[in-house]
């Protein structure tokens, strides 16, 4: 049949030649002369015939012979005309210059054909009228094309052909109208399509929500858009999200799941709807009920994203607010980033992100003790004292050692650990009772005993004043103190043999195992003043030093042996090679204590963690030799020479064995960033300037070399290798700024009537309500529910993680 053919060459248009069954069909008739100039046009017509056929439009070409004067060919100007018929009724007559290509032909034909379905408007009023009519009934598709006959126009018309019965299509070419409908300035040179959700707009005053489809407009894009607009806003899901498929996924868009549970369903539903509106056309939104689906994900997760790509797992996220969801969809790369951040921060909250690590313990003692808290201490040897038994227990043993501590305090607990070791070391030692008082249990006892600091260790002796320990809190130091305290200080020696034995470290026998410097005061019977001062000094130094005194009649013979005249001190250092003798010139107790302390210092000591403070107190620079192990005899000899030399008073010559004091590595690395070749000799100006100088490694360590190096140093000819940090010890991390949280410092009017604002102190607290409001905003955790009802979707905090947190708290507190 001719109608089926492409451009059948009908010589004459004959109405009655048409088949009756074609009457209802649309005919697009092109009447055109066969003049050769019309050839390109005919080609376009020919191409559009196929497209038009999809819409049930047949294209017929009529050759108008010059002599023909039929109804359509006859007119002179009809030579370039096209006609559209429905059945045999002429619908529209087209000037052929409007039909310049396939797009324009299809667009114009469909436009004419869908005259009733697609409203053309020119003014905003027209558009609003249509909108108002549609409100509550059906939705509207409003399209703007810069000109008719364009590809976009065609796409709109083609879409209208399909969806025209479902939605009201409205078309305009008025750029002004487009601008009037849009808030931001749209590009009027390209076509726009707005889907207006008028069906949901029940209030006459309420405008229809619009969802724009960004250019370019193609039939496919419009189709997709309308399909998405037709899908339900929020899909309720109660099955495994992995198995879910929606329009969005089919159309290559992601699907966002809002994870919900019974308790928060209403809020979550609102959140989901809010998000869905924001993401309309960009992603689908589904509400996933946790209660009905067994999800193996974090309780805190509140959002999941399923991408259309096959085999991509669903990502579960913890997001703070809806903006994050939207950004997430709009910028897919961010999914990854956010996810990574989330994983890093694992259990952290928003605040903690800001405050970084404030809540992480950075006190090494506290942390170490709390990590050790599960270990049970072997304290069976240590008597627990209470308010009731304190005084009675003290009278039971010759010496009672009491450790006062607080069971919640970290340093106390660290010392208690040493103390338990001391207890097992001293187990079976006669005459010593180890005990402890927990001041958290017995505050009255502790304040009565004048214990103001934790921990405090005291030795109570029958009938004597107690001695408070003032040394290092280490097992060795504590046991040494307790042992030394067993012997009275100073110990009165009765015979020459005892005195000699004492200097050799053999007397008294209970201390013979104890390596310690022995100090013997030799007094003639006449020197009572010095002797009394010495005894008093002994009380002060009790437990730290072995002190003996000899004041028998033959004291002179002892002093003669060591060529001193009493009053004098004899000093036998541990190792006991020689006995040094010191004449006593000062007789005040304080001077004596200081002198004894000073005399006990070594000339060329090995510096350790425990003895450094004694040398630090001298306030002198350090000439220190770092050695990997013991120092060689040669080095030792040379250094000793330097130490004993004229410069002895001006600096501390010492050495450090890295094997005994590994932390020395830390020192070297701070100075040189790497450990230099060892041994290394350094000059450290600890108390002035803090420069560190390194003795040239190529020079052998000899007295001569050292002294000339020191001279150059003093003359400023050497360059320091390093300088000690001058930094102050500032707070390691900020505190929670509760003042800020309670009321941000906003300039406010005086809250007290009668005070002029000028009088008001600037930091005066603000009005109560204002503060309350702000506080709520600042911290939605407390009263977020109410706020979320007010503005759905503002935050996601009301949902799953919040609930989880609430559960946690509940268990902790109110539900116990």
């Amino acid at each position: 049949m001719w109608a089926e053919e492409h451009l059948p060459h009908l010589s004459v248009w004959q109405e009655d030649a048409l088949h009756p069954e074609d009457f209802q069909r649309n005919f697009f008739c092109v009447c055109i002369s066969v003049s050769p100039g019309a050839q390109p046009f005919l080609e376009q017509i020919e191409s559009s015939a196929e497209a038009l056929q999809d819409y049930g439009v047949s294209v017929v070409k009529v050759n108008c012979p010059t002599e023909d004067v039929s109804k359509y060919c006859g007119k002179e100007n009809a030579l370039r005309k096209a006609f559209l018929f429905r059945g045999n009724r002429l619908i529209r007559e087209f000037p052929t210059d409007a039909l310049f290509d396939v797009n324009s032909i299809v667009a114009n034909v469909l436009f004419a054909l869908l005259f009733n379905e697609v409203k053309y408007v020119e003014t905003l009023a027209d558009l609003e009228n249509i909108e108002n009519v549609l409100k509550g009934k059906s939705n509207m598709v409003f399209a703007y094309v810069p000109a008719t006959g364009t590809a976009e126009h065609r796409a709109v018309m083609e879409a209208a052909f399909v969806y025209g019965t479902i939605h009201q299509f409205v078309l305009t070419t008025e750029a002004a109208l487009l601008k009037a409908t849009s808030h931001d300035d749209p590009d009027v040179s390209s076509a726009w399509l707005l889907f207006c959700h008028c069906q949901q707009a029940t209030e006459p005053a309420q405008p229809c929500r619009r969802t724009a489809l960004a250019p370019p407009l193609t039939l496919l894009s419009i189709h997709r858009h309308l399909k998405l607009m037709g899908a339900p806003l929020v899909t309720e899901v109660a099955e495994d999200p992995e198995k879910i498929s929606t329009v969005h996924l089919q159309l290559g868009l992601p699907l966002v799941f809002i994870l919900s549970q019974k308790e928060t369903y209403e809020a979550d539903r609102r959140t989901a709807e809010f998000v869905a509106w924001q993401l309309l056309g960009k992603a689908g939104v589904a509400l996933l009920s946790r209660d009905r689906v067994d999800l193996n994900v974090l309780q805190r997760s509140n959002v999941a994203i399923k991408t259309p790509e096959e085999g991509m797992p669903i990502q579960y996220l913890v997001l703070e607010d809806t903006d994050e969801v939207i950004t997430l969809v709009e910028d897919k790369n961010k999914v990854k980033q956010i996810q990574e951040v989330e994983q890093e921060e694992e259990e952290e909250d928003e605040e903690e992100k800001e405050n970084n690590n404030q809540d992480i313990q950075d006190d090494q003692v506290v942390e170490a003790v709390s990590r050790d808290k599960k270990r049970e201490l072997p304290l069976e040897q240590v008597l627990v004292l209470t308010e009731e038994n304190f005084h009675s227990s003290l009278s039971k043993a010759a010496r009672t050692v009491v450790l006062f501590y607080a069971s919640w305090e970290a340093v106390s607990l660290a010392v208690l650990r040493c103390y338990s070791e001391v207890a097992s070391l001293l187990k079976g030692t006669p005459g010593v009772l180890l005990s402890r008082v927990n001041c958290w249990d017995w505050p009255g006892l502790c304040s009565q005993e004048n214990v103001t600091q934790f921990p405090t260790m005291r030795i109570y002796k029958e009938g004597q004043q107690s001695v408070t320990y003032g040394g290092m809190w280490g097992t060795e130091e504590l046991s040494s103190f307790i042992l030394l305290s067993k012997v009275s200080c100073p110990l009165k020696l009765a015979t020459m043999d005892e005195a000699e034995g004492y200097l050799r470290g053999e007397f008294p026998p209970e201390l013979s195992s104890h390596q310690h410097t022995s100090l013997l005061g030799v007094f003639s019977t006449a020197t009572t003043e010095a002797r009394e001062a010495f005894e008093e000094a002994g009380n002060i130094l009790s437990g730290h030093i072995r002190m003996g005194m000899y004041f028998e009649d033959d004291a002179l013979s002892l002093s003669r042996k060591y060529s001193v005249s009493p009053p004098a001190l004899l000093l036998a250092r541990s190792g006991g090679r020689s006995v040094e003798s010191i004449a006593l010139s000062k007789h005040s107790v304080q001077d004596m204590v200081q002198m004894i302390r000073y005399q006990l210092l070594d000339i060329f000591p090995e510096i350790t963690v425990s003895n450094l403070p004694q040398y630090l107190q001298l306030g002198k620079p350090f000439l220190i030799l770092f050695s990997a192990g013991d120092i060689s005899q040669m080095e030792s000899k040379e250094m000793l020479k330097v130490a004993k030399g004229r410069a002895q008073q001006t600096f501390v010559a010492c050495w450090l064995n890295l094997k005994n004091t590994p932390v020395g590595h830390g020192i070297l690395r701070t100075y040189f960033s790497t450990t230099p070749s060892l041994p290394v000799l350094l000059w450290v100006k600890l108390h002035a300037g803090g420069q560190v100088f390194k003795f040239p490694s190529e020079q052998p360590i000899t007295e001569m070399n050292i002294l000339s190096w020191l001279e150059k140093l003093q003359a400023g000819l050497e360059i320091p290798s390093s300088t000690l940090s001058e930094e102050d010890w500032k707070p390691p991390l900020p505190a929670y700024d509760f003042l800020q949280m309670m009321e941000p410092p906003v300039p406010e009017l005086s809250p007290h009537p009668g005070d002029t604002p000028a009088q008001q102190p600037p930091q005066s607290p603000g009005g109560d309500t204002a503060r309350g409001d702000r506080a709520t905003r600042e911290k939605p955790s407390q009263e977020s529910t109410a706020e979320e009802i007010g503005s759905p979707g503002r935050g996601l905090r009301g949902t799953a993680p919040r609930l989880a947190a609430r559960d946690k708290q509940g268990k902790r507190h109110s539900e116990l």
Partner: protein
Amino acid sequence: MAPEVCGTLLGLALCAGSLCVVRGATFLYHDYCVIGAGPAGLQVAYFFQQAGRDYIVFERSHAPGSFFALYPRHRKLISINKQYTGKSNSEFNLRHDWNSLLSHDRRLLFRHYSRDFFPNADTMVRYLEDFASLLKLQVQYNTAIIHVTLEKNEQAWNGHYFLLTDQDRKNYKCSCLLVAAGTWVPNVVNFPGSEYVEGYETVSINPEDFTGQTVLILGRGNSAFETAENILGVTNFIHMVSRSRVRLSWATHYVGDLRAINNGLLDTYQLKSLDGLLEGDLEDLAIVKDKKGKLHITLRFYLENRNISADIDSITLPQDELDNFATRAPYDRVIRCLGWKFDFSIYNRSLRMMPGKGNIKKYPQIKPSYESRGTRGLFVLGTASHSVDFRKSAGGFIHGFRYTTRAVHHLLENRHHGVPWPSTVYPITQLTNSIIKRVNEASGLYQMFSVLADIILLRDNATTFEYLEEYPIGVLAELEMQTGRKARNGLFVIIMEYGRNFSGADKDVFYYNRAVGEAQHAWQSNFLHPVIYYYKHLPTEREMRLRHPDWPLPRPDAIHHIVEDFLTDWTAPNAHILPLRRFLENCLSTDLRNFFAESCFLFAFTHEKLPPSCQQGYVRMQGLVGGQELRHHAVQAGLLQDYTHTDFSDDRPPDSHDGSQEQLMRDHGIPVHPLQHLVNAKDEL
């Protein structure tokens, strides 16, 4: 010290021994006179006794605690006597012992007197008798002071002496007067027919006397409910009328409001029984008695211009016009339980003892230092001093005023004897500890929350501090003058607070999610929790006056809340101590961490300055060595570098080695070990 010995050093020419003759009258002189040997009077007497001061207590009755001999009528005290707390800490245990007075004598703890959680009032009387006699307090019984006046004298401590006259016209003269007379004058309302009303002080307490009767109770306090409770089972019904709505103490957190132990009537009211509560102004009431002796409630309004003694039938009753008037049923008895007020009558006008305004009109006007607003040297103690914290804290009750009394004594010691407020000086390294210790055990801070505060005065460029306990914050601005201590380097004020807006008569204190668990939300804590205010300068009186009405103190330079704790145990290292340390560090701009000796050793060689804990410990040869396990834990936590296994012949690049220790030194920041998050379980239960 015997009262006869006149301890005054004021060199009164007219004084011979303790007898002073002024204008012909004979006066017995004492530095301090105390009126009333109730709990507050005995408490202050104890402090005077301990300090060796010249004082005397006057008691009108033959024994101490005469109020408790009569009241409460039904004999059950509503102050708790908790025998067991699971703790031996005597200071902490006082938090749950509301009846004991403060003393050094451990026999004088109330739990040795009664095993009842709510003890009998007779026990209190016995306790007070023992307190006075065991401690040998100077109490002069059977002496009712009936008049107090002033005698100007420039040499007197306060510019005047107090002259007291007793019922036998005996005269006494004192430099300082402490009024601990309580509030014992019953509140009476006068309205037509009030003669038919029985008073709480005399009404029968035998329930049988109320069998089958209909009772109206005026008042809505604990005495009213206690009265109702007693007769609830035998009456037809009980109605209670009062102007204000009922205030439940568990909602207001005020122990003076209606206590759960007395609220049986609320139960029957709300559970559709016959008993009920009504609100109305008592001043508008009138009562008329009908021929059968029944009492009808009407309004004063109807009786105006009418003879009260007129026949009942001629008087309009509300139900005549409003036939569903609530109290239309006639009553058999009307009982007044309206509380008590201070006896202002004995004070001469020159003392200007004025009643407070509004709801504190039953109390005399006093300053937050408990000194009378009208007369210098006159202090009000005990229940009568409750205007300072009425309906807020516990200052009107034994468990509160035993502390405020001690505070007053400290103020007096400083003012008259040059003994500054007791304090202890500590090195700054003990700052966190001393606060933690106090907030965990201090009873005065706990009972007198938001009224008494511990004060930390920074000294010596914040290397040491001075700790003052339980100072009345109302006179914070006068701290230097009142305590004799200096606050030049800034101060911390430690108080306990309930969450703002948490307490109140109409508040739901059981709402879901009411407890804050996380330290960073601590400022929203609702239950009683410690709050620390930091001021760079002592607030001025002006700042105190202009402070926000909801704030106990003016806006500080920084504030810290320790998060509320279910066990009121604030010793958790991470949730309680760590945030507090950060707060203190940031206020003082220093690093208050503890370090092992080894770290201090390293710092000594690498830093010119040392952190306070090394400075005050290690350098003074009191470093913390720490055992193997602890060092191992610290290394594992990334807070200590282990150099033991360092192979020093190997010259590896420093970075591979540089542990957290070096970072610790470099920026004082904390090294975050990747494992930190996993192993550092944050003390969650």
